[in-house]
């Protein structure tokens, strides 16, 4: 079977799963599902620049964390914030920072780009950690979950199930946008620039500009996820911006498969579920996660989703 069709099929399965969660689970499980859904959205956002654009960013946690801080700093202290006004500030702030980081970093290639994004991410981390803005190492609190102000009705997101539904709508929108962009003409030009820069330039496109646009879109999507995390926990901390966080999301993207939309989401879900299960079994669960990561790299170097697509294709060939 063709990788695109498998990708689309997996996305439908994931979307159906996301809709079913509140009917099956409640309490702790729905909070876990909320966390996993947000991280899956973040992985899809990063996957969009790592895959088609070939830009391996190790600074995306900075966009995610900056948006979270912007929300914590703009949310009113004694009443719930309005989702629409605060989310716009958070996303716009993340996109603006991504535009700045991208404009400077995209001139560098390969490892130089990786470390450039890492350095900017660490600057962001130290900014909130060392300068005293946003509460230093202690972080800052958001006292109320934001409210959804629709025409004629105000929806509270205080309840875990309603917040989960809100999160899944936002994440599904991000996933859909990423899927559509990858298949659009814009996505094709990104892939073309990744694979052959000279020819792409000869066609009249500027690889620098289109990469920058992709980077900003991805940074904005990461920002939306940071907003959701801040709203979920009511708390933000400098660690949200640290490079370890960026690297973990990159691992999710690579485990699932960077060249598909569903891959990063599946990588995030598998990694976080494995963590959850191993954590219950042993205090030293990280060693289990490490072994899983190494096993996936050796068995499926391109990621789980491309591996599945390949396995299904070769079975079909055998039958024919």
């Amino acid at each position, binding site marked *: 079977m063709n990788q695109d069709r498998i990708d689309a099929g997996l996305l439908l399965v994931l979307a159906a799963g996301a809709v079913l969660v509140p009917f099956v689970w409640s309490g702790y499980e729905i909070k876990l599902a909320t966390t996993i859904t947000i991280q899956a959205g973040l992985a899809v956002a990063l996957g969009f620049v790592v895959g088609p654009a070939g830009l391996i960013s190790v600074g995306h946690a900075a966009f995610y964390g900056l948006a979270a801080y912007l929300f914590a700093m703009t949310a009113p202290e004694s009443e719930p914030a309005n989702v629409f006004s605060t989310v716009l500030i958070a996303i716009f702030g993340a996109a603006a920072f991504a535009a700045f980081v991208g404009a400077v970093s995209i001139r560098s290639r390969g490892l130089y780009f990786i470390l450039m994004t890492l350095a900017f991410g660490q600057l962001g981390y130290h900014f909130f950690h060392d300068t005293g803005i946003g509460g230093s190492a202690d972080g800052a609190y958001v006292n109320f979950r934001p409210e959804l102000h629709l025409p004629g009705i105000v929806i509270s997101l205080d309840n875990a199930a309603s917040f989960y539904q809100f999160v899944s709508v936002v994440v599904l929108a991000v996933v859909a946008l990423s899927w559509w962009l990858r298949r659009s003409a814009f996505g094709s030009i990104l892939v073309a620039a990744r694979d052959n820069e000279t020819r792409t330039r000869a066609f009249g496109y500027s690889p620098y500009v289109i990469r920058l646009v992709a980077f900003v879109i991805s940074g904005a999507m990461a920002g939306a996820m940071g907003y959701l995390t801040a709203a979920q926990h009511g708390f933000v901390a400098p660690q949200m911006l640290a490079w*370890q966080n960026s690297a973990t999301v990159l*691992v999710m993207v690579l485990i699932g498969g960077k060249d598909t939309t569903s891959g990063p989401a599946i990588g995030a879900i598998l990694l976080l579920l494995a963590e959850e299960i191993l954590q219950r079994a042993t205090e030293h669960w990280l*060693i289990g996660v490490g072994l899983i990561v190494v096993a996936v790299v050796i068995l499926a170097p391109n990621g789980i989703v491309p591996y599945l697509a390949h396995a299904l294709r070769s079975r079909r060939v055998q039958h024919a």
Partner: protein
Amino acid sequence: MSPFFFFVQLLNAVQYGLILYLVASGLTLLLGIMGVINLAHGAFYMVGAYMAFAVVQHLASFWLALPLAILLGLALGALLERFLLSRLEGADHLSQVLLSFGLILIINEGQRIIFGNDPHGIEVPQALNFSIPLSETFAYPAYRLFVCAIGIAFAIVVSLVMAKTRIGMMLRASAENRAMARALGVNAKRMYLGVTAAGIACAVLAGVIAAPIASVYPGMGDQVLILSFVVIVLGGIGSLPGALAGALLLGLVDSFGKQFFPNFAAFLVYAAMIAVLIVRPQGLFRGTGT
């Protein structure tokens, strides 16, 4: 400010820079010659520090840890190349990133299982446990001078090997153009094995040497890893003289940054790297790129 204060900071910068060079030289060789981004390099540095701790505790000798570190590093590097990295040859570079990330988790957690979460200190070895007076008020610990001496000796040996020997010639050729070096008869398999073993041994050795200066604690490799990457990016990927210059520069920024802007030393390191890359996107020295 007295000139001696300045001199002590300068010595600190050189000593710190030389330890970074020991770690970064292995990292830059792996990257320049094999195209491997080894995120686990810092974890091997930590392995060295914990090994020094265990050897001092059980064998009551710090000096024994030095040859043992080299042996352990060579063995770990050879195993890493033989059983993991060689399987990924021809695969996307990102799969090596992923592999080494998995290794970090395994090594870090293995350390917690064996040694627990508490930080440990290691006594400076008896023979070097004194200070050399510089003036009436300033003195410099002999052990730190010993670290400087090892670092300088290492830098000289490495540059002689690279410049004068056949192996060095093959390494330089491979860093310059991997495919061409292979076509001219460089045995890639053996070279990869040697480079990985030697590179990891450098990291483990650096961990042992640094252990009496810095304390030994879980996750101590993270910071060193990132700084080593900063070093090789400053110096240009695959360039050993570049790594030395980058390491010393970083030592200076860190040492004087901590004195004059204590809250912003970390900030300065990253800002310095961004500034260098904006002006020279390929590093200070001509690198091979990857």
